[in-house]
């Protein structure tokens, strides 16, 4: 089992006052709260913090922890000395630390599972299991067609001897058609098990998209930059445009300009109110490689003598 350096996690000195510990916890909790932080490690950091705070804010638990000595390093293999906590009485204040339900093996060995479990028996929470949260990353195409993903989840369970063990289980998750990044898929009853006869919690999967080589997504709308040749833009054309569902033939009106947007209504991410697909026009200019090419551009310059591309800049 790994030793946990609670002082290091909280970023305080071993002789920090209770007030300093409280301030450090408040500050770090705001920084790493999973609903506030975009840091992918936020959830893990926040759980660690909750555990460190549960020990350090409680002068009895803290004194017992300090008694282990200051020679231990974080991550070091740890076995508690016999009768290490003799003479300490843990009353606990019953108020929950953040993420109190899932403390480390290290914590459970020192303070027992009861300390964490007590915290869950608050009147507001009945004995329902904890909701679990995880992230699932899908391709944009999956949002158009729906998909299934096998995901692996780790959760703490009590074994026959009442000890906490981590168990991983696999789940086949249906990704509903029309889901988009930032939304949450709710799997009823797939969260933590309830206490006593309590119902299990739910599992929430936050959906993210893998970045796509061509398409950008905003909410339900999908964007594509479409390069055109100068003559396609000037004369109009029908070009084949890829969308995540299927390629479509798109009519480009004559005298189209770079940055112009064409909307394919309802071709964004599907749903009861489907998103739109936007084609953003770009003009690609063929390089002048040969003498003949240069002459051709020269002729164009003659032809369009009065054309002032920078007229709006007023220079």
């Amino acid at each position, binding site marked *: 089992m790994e030793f946990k350096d609670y002082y290091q996690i909280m970023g305080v000195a071993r002789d920090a006052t209770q007030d300093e510990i409280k301030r450090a916890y*408040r500050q770090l909790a705001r920084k790493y*709260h999973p609903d506030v932080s975009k840091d992918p490690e936020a959830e893990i950091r926040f759980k660690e913090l909750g555990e460190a705070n549960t020990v350090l804010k409680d002068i009895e638990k803290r004194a017992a922890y300090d008694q282990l000595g200051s020679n231990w390093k974080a991550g070091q293999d740890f076995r508690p000395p016999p009768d290490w906590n003799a003479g300490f009485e843990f009353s606990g204040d019953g108020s929950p630390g953040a993420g109190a339900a899932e403390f480390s093996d290290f914590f459970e060995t020192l303070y027992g599972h009861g300390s964490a479990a007590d915290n869950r028996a608050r009147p507001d929470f009945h004995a329902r299991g904890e909701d679990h949260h995880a992230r699932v990353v899908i391709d944009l195409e999956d949002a158009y067609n729906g998909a*299934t993903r*096998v995901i692996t989840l780790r959760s703490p369970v009590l074994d026959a001897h009442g000890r906490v063990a981590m168990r991983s289980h696999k789940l*086949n998750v249906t990704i509903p058609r029309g889901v988009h990044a930032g939304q949450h*898929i709710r*799997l*009823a009853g797939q969260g933590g098990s309830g206490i006593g006869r309590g119902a299990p919690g739910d*599992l929430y999967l936050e959906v993210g998209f893998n970045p796509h080589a061509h398409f950008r997504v905003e909410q339900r709308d999908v*964007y594509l930059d479409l390069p055109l040749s100068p003559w396609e833009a000037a004369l109009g054309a029908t070009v084949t445009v890829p969308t995540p569902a299927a390629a479509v033939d798109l009519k480009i009106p004559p005298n189209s300009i770079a940055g112009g947007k064409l909307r394919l209504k309802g071709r964004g991410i599907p749903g009861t109110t489907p998103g739109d697909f936007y084609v953003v026009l770009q003009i690609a200019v063929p390089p002048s490689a040969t003498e003949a090419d240069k002459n051709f551009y020269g002729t164009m310059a003659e032809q369009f003598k009065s054309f002032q591309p920078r007229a709006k800049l007023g220079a």
Partner: protein
Amino acid sequence: MDNGKMLPQPSAIILEEQTGLTLTEVCQACAVRVEFIVGLVDEGVLDPIGREPHRWRFTGTQLRRATVALRLQRDLGVNRAGAALALQLLDEIETLQARLRKMGHD
């Protein structure tokens, strides 16, 4: 054979797409008392359809806001108004980030 077929396959719903949730359903999903949700409506965090509480209908997006407000209050020790302010600022950050992504500054 695709062994994925042997795994449990719970029904999946998109939280944000749900509509017509009653006050009771929202309270159950958040595991809180009615007063907590009524408080969030009073604070303007949630904006259900319908006038009297027993006719209120919430969306999945509002349910999600309620759970975030709950966690902010529980974990950070902020009060209802503080959680409301945090949610409002988080919304603004989200909008700005979406605008940045749209301009290709990912």
